[in-house]
């Protein structure tokens, strides 16, 4: 798919969101509420524990929380699109086009996220920057950018792979719920990995989830120096590559399995 066509798909999806999202003010409030709850929570916890916990300073955990929240909100994706189109058979229309199904879905996903970035992520970041003393060293910027792109791709690939299950199962909602639970718990969007007990950390290190929000957030906030970030970015890239291969294998199998509902 050419970049021009890719961005056309992005544009259509972005505009679709702007047309329908009258409720986005509510969603901004919802985002602020999350930031407010978790920053207050950590402030209280840190004050009670004497100013340091899990290797974070109070200022450090506030920065981490805001950054991770903003990434989480900006990386909003609609993971019901593919299962919905398989369920009602309109996936047939996607397949008569001379474009890659994966790339088309990525482009649509980027458009969707771009809306949530501009309409929710950035306003929340701006207001938080005024309210809190956010720490994000400039020299981490290049590594942060690369890590963010990879974490976006990782989350997309995870969603896409789970979505492909809809070619086998009529009902994929349980899988999506399980994915939500794992991401909320293990991706670092709410609670950084450092707060988990020691015995569970090696297990989490073997899973892809912490590379979705935790890895970019610790790189952006400078908790990890840019030199150390390279290793983390390499692992992120490996996970993305792994999911690309997995989803390609699944896609081949799914094509054989596809049933178009409704004739």
């Amino acid at each position, binding site marked *: 798919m050419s970049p021009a066509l890719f961005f056309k798909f992005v544009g259509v999806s972005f505009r679709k969101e702007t047309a329908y999202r009258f409720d986005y003010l509510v969603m901004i409030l919802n985002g602020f509420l999350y930031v407010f709850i978790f920053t207050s929570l950590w402030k209280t916890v840190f004050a009670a524990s004497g100013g340091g916990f899990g290797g974070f300073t109070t200022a450090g955990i506030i920065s981490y929380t805001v950054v991770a929240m903003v990434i989480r909100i900006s990386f909003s994706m609609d993971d019901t699109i593919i299962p919905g189109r398989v369920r009602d058979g309109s996936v047939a229309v996607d*397949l008569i086009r001379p474009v890659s199904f994966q790339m088309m879905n990525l482009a649509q996903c980027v458009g969707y996220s771009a809306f949530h970035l501009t309409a929710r992520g950035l306003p929340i970041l701006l207001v938080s920057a005024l309210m809190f003393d956010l720490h994000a060293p400039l020299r981490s910027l290049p590594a942060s950018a690369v890590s963010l792109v990879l974490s976006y791709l990782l989350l997309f690939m995870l969603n896409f792979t789970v979505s492909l299950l809809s070619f086998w199962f009529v009902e994929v909602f349980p899988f999506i719920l399980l994915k939500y639970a794992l991401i909320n718990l293990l991706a670092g969007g709410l609670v950084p990995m450092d707060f988990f007990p020691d015995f569970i950390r090696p297990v989490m290190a073997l899973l892809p989830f912490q590379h979705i929000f935790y890895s970019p957030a610790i790189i952006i906030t400078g908790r990890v120096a840019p030199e150390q970030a390279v290793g983390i970015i390499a692992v992120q890239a490996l996970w993305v590559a792994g999911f690309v291969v997995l989803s390609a294998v699944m896609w081949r199998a799914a094509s054989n399995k596809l049933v178009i509902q409704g004739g």
Partner: protein
Amino acid sequence: MTPDNGGPTIIEAVNLKKEFTVNEPGKGAFGAVKALFSVKKMIVRAVDGVSFSIKQGDFVGYVGENGAGKSTTIKILTGILVPSSGVAKVNGVVPYEDRKKNAGNIGVVFGQRTQLWWDLPVRESFEMLKAIYRIKQNDFAEMMKKLSAVLDMGPLMDVPVRKLSLGQRMKCDLAAALVHRPGVLFLDEPTIGLDVLAKENIRAFLREMNKTEGTTIILTTHDMNDIEQLCERLIMLDRGRIIYDGLTAELKSKFVREKLIEVEFHGTPPSLLGMPELSVVEEKGPKLWLKFQDEGGGIAKVIGKLASFDVKDISVREPSVESIVMSIYEKTRTLPPYVEETK
């Protein structure tokens, strides 16, 4: 027998089969619980050994009752479904192995779904298609001009797709399937749900595209008028198998030799005892409806004989394609069932 228009073969299907596995639902509450533990699977063969070849410029009707395998065949030829066995080729491309390449060469309309962007104005949907098919600006402008003239799309261009009526949407969908000048056009129930006038417009358009652009068209439909008016060739399916493949016109002579003669006499109809080849279907005042088994041109003789009576008006009616199709289905219902039980 396959009709030959002399052109190169553009679509080829060889012994295509497509099986779907279906879980048999348990009967009643107990059955539903039982089905949780032992799933009885059925294999449904939607397409069961279909072979045909279609030449460039053909206009082929692909008909059959619901579940006969029409749409499944179309979905194999468009690269959406992978056949369980057999081979298909469109423009020399195996559609399910090289879906994207095939998709660039064909146009597809699914009557029940739109390929347009629901939220965009029609014009922008076409701009998207222009980018997707990488159509050059000049070609695009020229084709859009032609399509909107023939389909009268001008007033629709700035309307969001979701606000179009079914007939308007179908026009736009047809144009969308043709804007990149595909060599082959697949139409899956394009006239479903349309009123008579809209159907007539769309038929005229398809005839025109087939003639002027040389587009090969494969049309599935339930409307036998579509077939009778458009398709020179007819492929008929029943439970996944082809039961007729030939000229639409020949279908009549091949399957139905029965003709209906309507005669109106001056005064009371005479006795037709001297003509045992005729049987009276109905009699109403001076009018008689007669059935005649036409075994090779005998109809002229019969008319001649009838004319020797005091006849006011006479007309011969042929059965519609629809009634022929119905009678063929009835004849072929002795085929083995297409559902097999495995376990």
